[in-house]
């Protein structure tokens, strides 16, 4: 093969051009691949994810720390990274014992617990800050990929797209879940994290087709003009039957839809209005990033926040019917009528 290539290079300019083209293409693809790999490996959102956010009192349940995307966790969370892990219920805040966290499948950190009394619960996890050094190219890609568009624009405006970065990042996440039917006011609890989402109404008194206002706080104060992304996994039909032993798994493509998400910007009060178009598990995410000018070590500081909760539909007497089935009573009454008429006809004939 080498001989052939040399031959072509020597005797045919066309092949020389082809060779250069192939090599440059290969290098470009490799670069693109490495960049993509970097983005996938480095930009990890953190979420508190539950199989269901509707639980019963005194039921065993689990919540998982998803470090990656909302659908797939890529890494565990080391215990020493957790600054705070709390559950708020019945007006009381209880710390989660670090010993209670267990690692699942080397990618998911999980907490198994037993729910208490009926009410609306809040779970929160805050992690220590870490630093990461990035080349200018990787940093720009990450800003674009993770939707930190304001910082990317600022870098463009300041003509510093070519500058490498050392970023300090910290993540603060919350989930709100409902135990039993009784709604309590703990959903509005401010956990005091450096950045956090606080709903302006109980998500469990909201139903699909409605909206939910959520306030974003930075160091306890409303954060205005901040980009927030909201997505959801469709409906109570979301499927992911992965067996615990990992021997079998399947997903229903029809029901497990990952939405493209809403891009929102907080108003003067730091509030975003999230559309809740369908039943499903909703997740909000934001990354607030600032430039650091007074440090020799750092160039940027980011604070990440997520909030997860589930939305169902309002239960009225008319909502308990299957989408595409004839109501049973209609079927029965109609059937009896038809059979009655048929019976009379055949009896008369006989």
């Amino acid at each position, binding site marked *: 093969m080498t001989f052939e290539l040399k031959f072509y290079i020597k005797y045919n300019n066309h092949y020389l051009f082809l060779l250069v083209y192939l090599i440059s293409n290969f290098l470009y693809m490799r670069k693109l691949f490495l960049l993509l790999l970097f983005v996938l490996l480095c930009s990890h959102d953190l979420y508190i994810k539950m199989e269901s956010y509707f639980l019963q009192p005194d039921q065993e349940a689990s919540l998982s720390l998803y470090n990656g995307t909302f659908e797939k966790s890529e890494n565990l969370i080391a215990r020493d990274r957790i600054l705070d892990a709390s559950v708020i219920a019945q007006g009381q805040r209880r710390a989660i014992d670090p010993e209670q966290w267990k690692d699942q499948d080397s990618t998911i950190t999980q907490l198994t617990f037993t729910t208490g009394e009926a009410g609306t619960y809040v779970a929160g996890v805050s992690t220590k800050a870490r630093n990461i050094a990035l080349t200018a190219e990787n940093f720009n890609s990450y800003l674009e990929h993770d939707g930190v568009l304001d910082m990317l624009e600022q870098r463009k405006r300041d003509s510093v797209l070519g500058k490498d970065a050392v970023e300090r990042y910290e993540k603060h996440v919350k989930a709100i879940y409902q135990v039993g039917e009784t709604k309590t006011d703990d959903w509005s609890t401010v956990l005091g994290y450096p950045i956090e989402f606080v709903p302006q109404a109980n998500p469990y008194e909201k139903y699909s087709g409605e909206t939910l206002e959520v306030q974003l706080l930075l160091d306890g104060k409303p954060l205005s003009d901040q980009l927030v992304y909201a997505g959801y996994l469709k409906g109570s039909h979301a499927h992911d039957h992965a067996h615990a032993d990992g021997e079998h798994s399947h997903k229903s493509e029809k029901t497990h839809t990952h939405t493209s998400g809403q891009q929102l910007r907080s108003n003067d009060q730091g509030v975003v209005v999230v559309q809740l178009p369908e039943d499903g598990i909703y997740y909000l995410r934001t990354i607030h990033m600032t430039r650091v000018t007074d440090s020799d070590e750092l160039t940027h500081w980011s604070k990440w926040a997520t909030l997860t909760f589930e939305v*169902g539909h309002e239960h009225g007497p008319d909502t308990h019917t299957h989408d595409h089935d004839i109501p049973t009573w209609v079927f029965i009454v109609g059937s009896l009528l038809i059979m009655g008429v048929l019976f009379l006809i055949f009896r008369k004939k006989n």
Partner: protein
Amino acid sequence: MGSSLRRALPLLLLFVPLLGLAHDVTSADQELLRNGGLWAYVQVGATHMLTGYDHLLFLTGVIFYLNSFIDILKFITVFTIGHCITLIGATYAGITADEHLVDAVIALSVLYKGFENLGGFEKFKVKSPHLLLMVGLFGLVHGFGLSTRLQSFDMGKEQVLAKILCFNLGVEVGQVLALVPIVFIITLSRKHKQFPAFYKAVNWYLVLAGIGLFAYQMYGYL
């Protein structure tokens, strides 16, 4: 008028279990499954069978054709084995299909049974397919329908096989609960002098219901 009422009474009684337990399989079931553990799967399986009029219509058609208790037992066993295979197998393997299409085939099974009971094959001078084999085949189809419905629920990640088995158990419980009054009423009606009219009325109804349900499901699919 009084005698007509007496004759119509068996018909009404036939549907008493449905009227009493009428409850559509809904998101309420989803919430029950989320929070109620394995017992909830038994409960939802039974409810689905008792309110699944297409399954019950087919079973009514099967029983109408049979005279002895042994035959009823034999045919119901074959139907049960058929639907267990696809219910457990398809759910565990994650095999699913459009609910409308599966329900459309189930509707055809109802139409088929009414047509067969009315001697449709003989009228067209066609040899009717093997009865037991057809019941077994339709059992597989009905099981796939049950599986498709079960898979439309979020079953979570834990105890998946146990949940499927519990749902299946519920289906069998529901089937027995529905069969007892159906068998009782059909057996009683055989002794009545108007039984031929009743037989024809019910089986013609099965044909019409099969066509109607098929059209309805295809409309939903398209």
